[in-house]
């Protein structure tokens, strides 16, 4: 095993294509990722609203389970692909150190159910692993069809870089842009790459929540993006699946494809589109872009 993998609830529903494409890409790169046995929900934002301490305990159970997989090593790297899970797990770790009383209770609670906990898991985002462990060189060497001519607006969302900047610049992150460049795509320079998509507010107060997503898409489109690349199931859902509702609310049709960055990587790697969950997109990638990807591929010797 190279990494543990924490799927998160979304991977069984809306975010299924993220998991599919992530696994396909890691397979293609020969990086092994094992699912954390019997993982539970990370707590997300909602749980925090009700009971912070229980939210931390909930997330910490995953951390404790992960330590079991460490095989006697000093620590273990666990990939969390969903931004909310990624933050929820890291936040639990920070809370446990920052608030000793809370830390004590959680550790004791875990031990009482037979889970020893030393706070030694490194939570990693796939972008972090791809860019810092695997590296652009190895990624570029796996590219079959350069995404030449495809203009991608990289959308990082909030919780990868905020509040904890663990692997990228907090104000203007660059990892996804560099990754996209490595697979031959052109990236759009826009100031909204970490502006909030509305999160769960798109469902609960759509008139305002959806406006945030709408603003992002509109600006990306204005700047010439062919596609928006995301790194979070909720962002992807908000930006893509709600475009119909946006048209109804704001009277403007955007029709901008929104994909996971891993799906674009998979396309560049020449992986079959079904393995990447491309068919699950509501707004399909335009045929001319896909064909250009393939054409470009013929000219590239790898």
């Amino acid at each position, binding site marked *: 095993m190279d990494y543990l993998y924490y799927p998160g609830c979304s991977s069984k529903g809306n975010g299924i294509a993220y998991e599919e494409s992530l696994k396909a890409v890691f397979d293609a790169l020969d990086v092994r990722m094992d699912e954390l046995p019997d993982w539970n929900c990370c707590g997300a934002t909602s749980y925090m609203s009700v009971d912070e301490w229980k939210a931390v305990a909930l997330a910490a159970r995953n951390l404790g389970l992960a330590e079991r997989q460490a095989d006697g090593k000093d620590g273990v790297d666990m990939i969390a692909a969903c931004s909310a899970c990624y933050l929820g797990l890291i936040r639990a770790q920070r809370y446990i150190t920052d608030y000793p009383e809370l830390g004590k209770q959680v550790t004791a609670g875990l031990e009482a159910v037979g889970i020893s906990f030393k706070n030694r898991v490194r939570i990693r985002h796939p972008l972090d692993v791809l860019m810092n462990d695997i590296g652009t060189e190895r990624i570029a060497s796996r590219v079959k069809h350069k995404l030449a001519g495809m203009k991608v607006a990289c959308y990082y969302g909030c919780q990868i870089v905020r509040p904890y900047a663990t692997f990228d*610049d907090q*104000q*203007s992150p660059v990892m996804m842009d560099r990754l996209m460049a490595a697979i031959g795509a052109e990236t759009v320079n*826009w*100031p*909204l790459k970490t502006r909030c998509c509305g999160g769960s507010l798109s469902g609960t107060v759509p008139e305002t929540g959806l406006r945030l997503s709408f*603003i992002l898409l509109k*600006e990306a489109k204005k700047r010439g993006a062919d596609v928006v690349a995301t790194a979070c199931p909720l962002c992807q859902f908000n930006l893509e699946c709600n475009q119909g509702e946006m048209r109804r609310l704001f009277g403007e049709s955007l029709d901008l494809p929104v994909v996971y960055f891993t799906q674009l990587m998979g396309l560049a790697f020449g992986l079959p589109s079904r393995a990447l969950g491309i068919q699950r997109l509501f707004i399909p990638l335009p045929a001319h872009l896909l064909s250009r990807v393939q054409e470009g591929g013929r000219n590239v010797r790898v």
Partner: protein
Amino acid sequence: MSGFNSSTNGHPPRIGVFICHCGTNIAGKVNVPEVVEFARTLPFVAVAKEYKYMCSDPGQEMIKHDIQQYGLTRLLVAACSPHIHEETFRKVASEASINPFLFQMVNIRELVSWVTEDGHEATEKAKAMIRAAAKRVLFHDELEPKKYPVKPGVVVVGGGIAGIHAALVMADAGERVYLVEREPSIGGHMAMFDKTFPTLDCAACILTPKMTTVRRHPNITVLSYSEVVEVSGFVGNFKVKVKKKPRYVVEEKCVGCYECIEACVFKEPRFPNEFDLGLGKRKPIYVPFPQAVPPVPMIDPETCIQFRTGKCPKGCVNACGDRDGIDFDQKDEIVELEVGGIIVATGFDTFDASRLPYYGYGIYPNVYTGLEVERLLNASGPTGGEVLLRNGQKPQSVGIIHCVGSRDENTNRWCSRVCCMYSLKLAHLMKERTGAEVYNFYIDIRAPGKGYEEFYDRLLQEGVHFIRGKVAEVSDWAMTPDEENRLVIRVEDTLIGMVRRIPVDMVILSVGLEPQRDAQEVTKLFNISCSTGNWFMERHPKLAPVSTMSAGIYLAGACQGPKDIPDTVAQAGAAAAEVLALTHKSVIEVEPNTAFIDERYCSGCQICVGLCPYSAIYYDEEKKVAVLNEPLCLGCGVCAAACPSGAAQQHLFQDEQLYAEIEGALVGVG
């Protein structure tokens, strides 16, 4: 060896204990009468008294009187920190003809009454400390302060307005001054400004005459493009090594005709001029700005063809002709100076605005820093004083963002003190020169100076907009047609309670002041300390604001903390006066806390020789003992700690004294 016999002629010592109330500062917490009673029970204490303010005249008189009346041979004052009044009471002892070093100060204010919650605890702690001192003082020796002649001359480090003013004051008083500046010209930041607040005097008009006077002054030597590389010695007797960096134009031969610049193979200036913050251009051979002092050009080897390829027609050399002022082989030159005092006036740096990407500096071309705008406004600047955007157009609207890199725990916590006022000044000048709408985005307007609030009022009348709120972001993201192709400032107008988006053509970031990037190295060089945030630390925030903990080294200007020009000049004058007070003495007294080596116990192991940081100990091959060269000893006591036989000792911190103090502080404490 010490021991109380040495200074009491065989009679038992008689200690006087004097306990200060310091108004209510001590007496409000410590039960002073109880402590007095306790002191009376201590061995050898002949008298114990209390008084409201022991440092006042009546207090001092009381001590002197009691020394005589009770025949005291040891003196103990329990009051504030020895850093404040140790000297005062040593003088008292001296005047009552007790050797001043038979005195010990007990700090029951900073270390007791001010830091202890409970009155009873404070009283007990004060007692223990007095008992410790009463034991320690038994082992004090009579000492004479070390006296050294004071050398004339002062090194001033930094040629900004602080260094210039201090140098002039001292030179006028007849003192020899060496003004060391690391840039090619003196003048500092002030030389870059257009106008000064709140009077709107032209900075050049008030600064350049002073710069010229410095150059002409017979008592001032300007060492420009030079840096201090080593400082040794001590108060009154400093040795300062200065490295003169090569400017490839021989200062002594240059007449300042600038024909060499004219004759350079580059017909047009094409390299970014550092002095104009890259907004203007220069040639490889250049003067940073027309009023530079010394008015000597320099060659930048990075851009000079001769340096890069060795194949240049060398127009500069030909133009200089017989004067032969160009020297491509010039090397670093070390100048050694011996002086009595040093003034550190190294100034400040401005905050690097690119650290805050959400303000767009370095991302959007029309986001400027305040200092850059000073250059744009300056008549001798890159645009001749016309404010033009990078696309050559005049701005129609300008946003000035305050507190960039100030009052922010993510960057710098302090208020930089000058930004509000310079922002107001820039607002006024921008409106005057361009007619643009000007918006000031501020958190609080801080205008506490003579004529400052009035200037703010003037700006309000002039129709400059003031929006209270820390700007959240500057971006090129347009949401409405009038925002297209402009910079949009997003801010909560906190007085209205609403988020506003204001499109502008130009953003000015009022960057805060920071210590120089190499402040840490400078402190090591001069053996001074830094306060929080790396500003140089003054000896006392109120009573010794220009002194440092290193005697003979003084501070002037913004290197000690953010300051505007009037404050800087006032402080420079103060530092000059302090140095003059030092150098006008023929002899300086130095604390006799030096080491001494008792040859009888020295085994000649030489451990101390290697440890001494000042090479003040050498090994006498004949006697086979270590010998101290006392004038070199600065009194750290490392040798005393390391000596395995107890031969090396430190005056005022001898083994017996410290052992007695520790024991007294502990034994019998309940």
